């Protein structure tokens, strides 16, 4: 009943696009314009590289997170998986195991962590909020157990170059290539295949989805596995970028990931959202952070601004949705009385 995006060529689809994604694009354009005024360096290719790389891990993790939120769940554990991935990678490297074994190994660990989340949510019937809060502590704890307070460096230059460097001859950093690939693949899956349609159906109405033959357990578990794997990949990228593996890597990232997803127009209650919106949100946030830095605004303000952005990006559509729902409810006629008096959750 929301005004947000539903699949199919409904008028809602067009309206939803007209509202949120375009609005975001306008905000982004405005920020770029302000940035170019604030600092002469802003529009340089070097700065473009800087600003995207600064948020690349959260950007990559926001993509599978969007699918999870659209399916009606959430994964708070991603930031700890970044730490676990970084720690294990560093531990293995320090133990003399080559990266071509280490990297696949941490990706497998990410998948297993996601599998744990997924099974507890689907088979265990537990709310993903609490499950992933538990694994948020668990994965971070394991990272600490693996590496302790140490940090591992002296990674080979080919590896760290993957974090720092650009694709030769372009201002495009390697991690951005990874982001683009993941975004395109997930965008296609979500918006062009029936798997994506089933994900929307799950978030809209899980009962109906299940009765319609959607394999709820398999689909949701798969999404958590994807999220865990991508988080582990983000851990690898972070390790490469800082040329250092640490147990506390990624701390606090979940907040930014969730902020990007919701700022991108994904409905926190599930069932709607677009990858395009999330990609726009990534750049909006990246430009905002970059502009704040170039304007010499205190770093402390950034965590405040991200928090505010998160709340605002939910409050605004929420208030709009409530107005819309009140309208729909009146039109829908004999809806249960509950809806008319219960204030949300």
């Amino acid at each position, binding site marked *: 009943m929301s005004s947000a995006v*539903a699949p*199919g060529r409904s008028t809602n689809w067009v309206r939803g696009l007209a509202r949120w994604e375009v609005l975001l694009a306008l905000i982004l354009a405005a920020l770029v314009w302000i940035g170019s005024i604030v600092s002469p360096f802003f529009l340089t290719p070097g700065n473009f590289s800087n600003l995207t790389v600064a948020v690349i891990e959260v950007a990559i993790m926001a993509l599978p997170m969007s699918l999870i939120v659209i399916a009606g769940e959430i994964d708070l554990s991603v930031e700890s998986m970044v730490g676990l991935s970084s720690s294990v990678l560093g531990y293995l490297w320090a133990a003399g195991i080559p990266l071509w074994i280490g990297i696949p190994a941490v990706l497998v660990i990410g998948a297993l962590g996601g599998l744990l989340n997924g099974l507890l949510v689907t088979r265990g019937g537990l709310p993903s909020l609490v499950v992933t809060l538990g694994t948020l502590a668990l994965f971070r704890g394991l990272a600490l157990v693996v590496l302790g307070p140490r940090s591992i460096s002296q990674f080979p230059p080919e590896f760290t170059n993957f974090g720092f460097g650009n694709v030769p001859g372009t201002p495009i950093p390697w991690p951005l290539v990874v982001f683009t690939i993941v975004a395109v693949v997930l965008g296609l899956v979500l918006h062009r295949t029936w798997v994506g349609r089933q994900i929307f159906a799950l978030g809209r109405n899980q009962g109906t989805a299940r009765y319609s033959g959607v394999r709820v357990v398999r689909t949701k578990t798969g999404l958590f596995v994807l999220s865990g794997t991508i988080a582990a990949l983000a851990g690898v990228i972070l390790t490469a970028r800082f040329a250092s593996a640490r147990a506390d890597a990624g701390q606090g990232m979940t907040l930014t990931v969730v902020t990007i997803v919701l700022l991108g127009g994904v409905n926190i209650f599930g069932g709607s959202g677009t990858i395009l919106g999330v990609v726009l949100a990534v750049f909006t946030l990246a430009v905002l952070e970059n502009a704040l830095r170039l304007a010499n605004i205190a770093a402390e303000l950034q965590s405040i601004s991200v928090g505010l952005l998160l709340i605002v990006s939910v409050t605004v559509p929420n208030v709009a949705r409530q107005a819309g729902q009140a309208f729909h409810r009146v039109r829908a006629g004999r809806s249960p009385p509950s809806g008319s008096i219960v204030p949300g959750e």
Partner: protein
Amino acid sequence: MISPTPPIASVIPSVSPEAAIPLRTELRDISKRFGATQAVDSVSLDLRSGEVHALVGENGAGKSTLVKVLAGIYAPDSGSIFLDGQRMVIRGPANARQLGIAVVHQEPSLFPDLSVAENVFLGHQPSGRFGSIAWGSMRTAARRLFEELDVRLDVASPVRGLSMADQQLVEIAKALSVEARVLILDEPTASLSAHEVDRLFAIARQARERGVAVLFVNHRLEEVFELSDRVTVLRDGRRVITADTSDLTTADLVRHMVGRDVTMFPKVATTAGEVLLEARDLTRSDAFMNVSFSVRAGEILGFAGLVGAGRTEIARVLFGIDRADSGEIRLAGQPVRFDSPAAALSNGVAYVPEDRHQEGLVLDFSIASNVSLPILPRLFPRLFVHRETERRLAADYAERLSVRSTGVDQLVGALSGGNQQKVLIAKWLATKPRVLILDEPTRGIDIGAKAEVHRIIADLAASGLAIILISSELPEVLAMSDRILVMHEGRITAELARADATEEQVMFAATGQQAHGDRPTAPVPTVD
């Protein structure tokens, strides 16, 4: 057209504030609109102290809306409520209760984690010293209420885990716990046993003796005649008639409700083919026991019984949502075991669930997206959805079932109930099933749409589908089915051929009276 009843003023004596007139509750010209739907249109109703007033009407006639206005859940758009000639504005459910309006809602709305006693008294708990809650006297009072109802329930145990019938009894006790001037019973008997219904009626009569005005909303006309003094019929949000019950016959009531002679269901002439689905000794511990039956191609097998008899639970097992503890299911002779609806679907079993909104449709998906949802993997084996294919398929089925819409891109939520039901059936037909299970396929849709759905079901059977029809509407089951199975408390209590089945026989078996007479309330579970 039936001539409207005379205005309220001539029905009841004129109001004189100082005279010792009996307590009276009046609704005057109440209207309530939901968007395009005029749910209640200028309805007046007076409830006299010491009467049982029945409110009847088809689904969607406006009964529930009217009750909710009186219960303070909806504010009327226009019109007013008078208590003893005093104009009142009911500011909410709690306010309604303060004014002495007690409601037993159709659906129990209780707090599963709180105790039975607390559920009964929540909001007006007896207070002890310092205004704290007096738990002891609360439990005693609750126990007394249930004694009055002749029900054994542990008032200290939480509501979680009580049966629907017991929960309904808690609702009734809740309503009785306040000193009510108006007691509203909104279809309270659906899940009660015969004995419990008798007790409820006895209590309603007691309340009447005490001068309470009882408003009794019901579908079961025999109960209306048994209990009520006067009856008001609503149709399409308007009041058709208010009259003394004794002046009316069942046929009168039915005519007033539907406004025309009852439509005949289309007859089906089918030749049954081979057995497509067979169940042998199916048992699921908390739902049904030793259920065996078979359905042939081209046959409609009716499942009759009261709500909660275990019919939906059987359908859920056949469709792979739940699993049977023991027993066997055979599909075209082959034993099958579905672990998910997806598995049932790919074997040609389709289930049109009872709850359209929670289990049937995605309301904010388009018609096309709803119709294709169960067959997406089959339709698009290469993952990518081709919208044109999808729309053509949906348009084809929508046309065959004459769904009225602006096109297959319209959101299902914007359709009327009858058209939603047709989309739901279209969705399951698109899976090209061999066995189609329909669970209350005409619930909550208007009479015209009902007849259409019946025609569709008959056509489907004629085309060779095996159909299982679960319905609580006796005339529907009787008219549509080739054979009828009657269930009572998880067991099949009768199997009747079409020619032999009568409403009385089915009702007899559905209430299980043959088997073991009146069943007392469910025993209070204890720790073992």
